């Protein structure tokens, strides 16, 4: 990567992280997470803590359950479920604005007279979007684990699984969460690259944001519904491979499944990026 490219990424970072809409994601997580933790703490009988109780209910008749079955790790795990819809929305909010936002603002004509290629501009925008995604997921990880542990303590992690009882040692739980967040970043990069691609097609940022969310939600519905017709479509949807972070909490870790999901998501990310390049390189900048 040349110095010019690094400089371009730096400029894109300044532009992106200077916008108020970039702060929305962090503000939303920063405000919502403590509230969620307080709500969980106040609703231990019926709230998410009850999920942990349901996991061990079948054993209670023959076993005494000792120790805390719900702790900060359980709370962070529940918060991770926001990776299906909520976090993709926050990512699309920024990624969808990368090209369309500049198109709407009319800054491309000035930007593109610089001695940089359109490919370099899109690559820099993708790198910035990826960086934003990393920061957002790390922020989510830091706050959910931090507040979770502050509110509910730490210890071994009872993984809420419907068909088995799995307890991970605390030391191993940290590693599993690390792996889960890495896989989450990888999956969210696919969403980010999709939003960036849609952004190259639109003239204002609302369309790519709504478009990304429509695709994510529709794909998730098809991925989860148990219909034969959907089963045939499922392998072609990127949302089918977005559950890698969940697999990080299985024992043993299904590395083969994770590798396959990672590969497919990588192919989707690359494809959306190449499509973005194709569209943007051919795009008439009229505004």
């Amino acid at each position, binding site marked *: 990567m040349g110095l010019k490219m690094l400089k371009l990424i730096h400029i894109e970072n300044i532009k992106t992280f200077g916008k108020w809409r970039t702060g929305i994601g962090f503000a939303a997580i920063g405000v919502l997470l403590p509230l969620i933790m307080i709500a969980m703490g106040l609703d231990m009988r019926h709230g998410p803590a009850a999920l942990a109780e349901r996991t061990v209910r079948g054993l209670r008749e*023959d076993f005494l359950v000792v120790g805390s*079955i719900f*702790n900060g790790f359980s709370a962070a795990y529940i918060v991770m479920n926001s990776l299906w819809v909520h976090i993709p929305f926050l990512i699309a909010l920024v990624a969808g604005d990368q090209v369309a936002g500049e198109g709407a603002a009319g800054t491309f004509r000035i930007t593109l007279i610089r001695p940089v290629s359109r490919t370099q501009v899109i690559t820099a925008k993708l790198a910035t979007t990826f960086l934003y995604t990393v920061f957002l997921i790390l922020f989510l990880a830091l706050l959910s684990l931090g507040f979770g542990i502050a509110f*509910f303590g730490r210890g071994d992690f009872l993984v809420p699984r419907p068909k088995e009882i799995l*307890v991970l040692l605390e030391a191993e739980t940290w590693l599993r969460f690390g792996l889960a967040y890495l896989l989450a970043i990888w999956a969210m990069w696919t969403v980010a690259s999709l939003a960036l691609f849609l952004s190259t097609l639109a003239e204002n940022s609302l369309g790519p944001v709504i478009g990304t969310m429509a695709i994510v939600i529709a794909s998730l519905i098809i991925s989860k519904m148990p219909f034969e017709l959907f089963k045939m479509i499922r392998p072609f949807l990127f949302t089918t491979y977005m559950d890698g972070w969940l697999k990080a909490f299985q024992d043993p870790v299904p590395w083969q499944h994770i590798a396959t999901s990672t590969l497919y998501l990588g192919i989707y990310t690359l494809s959306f990026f190449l499509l973005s390049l194709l569209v943007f390189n051919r795009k008439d900048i009229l505004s």
Partner: protein
Amino acid sequence: MKQHCYWATVCILALFALGVNANFGFGEDSRLSAKDILKRVQESFEEIEDYTVTLDETIKMEGVKVPKREAKLYYKKPNKVHIESKDIAFIPRGGIVINPSYYLKEHFKPLGVEDEILEGVNTYKLTLTSKEASLGEKAVLWVESKHWSPKKMEITGWEGGTVLVQMEHAMVEGKYWLPKSTLVELNIPPRTPKRRIFESADDFDARKERLSGRPRKGTVSISFRDYKVNTGLSDEIFERKNDHSGNR
């Protein structure tokens, strides 16, 4: 004739002696009733007011993946038990029954008793039936005749499930005969809900599929160490919940 009488007397005496020897080991106790035996088991705990012990547990069960656990058990007469662990632990109820005769007397009525040699040890095999249907249909308890300690216990549930507990005891502090290890074998079939009145077969099938539990099969082994007997445990310990919040 005299000679014949002499030999007949010798034979009778010899047979009598053999009969006594054959009964040796159970002696007069073989005539004990199941109630008496349970009472003796309970009496063997008389000197123990309270104790604390550390448990090391290993679970090998279908659908249960839990690392090796350590927990601390507090016991106080007659049946107060409190367990603490900084980790999540699943302790089988049968595996830590301190004084089974207390529970068995409460919930079971004896049907019969017979002598049995179990792994080379003379035992009394007590057959008991539950007073309440929910507790299980039958319980069999093998009591070691030397120390009056339970060696094995089998409880058959009303759905055919069995819980088999094998116990090893050891001398603690030179005078108390307490559990050293237990091996609990669980074989519990899936629990199925009962059909409700006015419930259609389809609704019941749907509910049954949703609510039916999973079978539980496997073993739990627990070893007991670091006993501290009669230290005067406070009642407050037993008022705490059987859990421990996470480390903060």
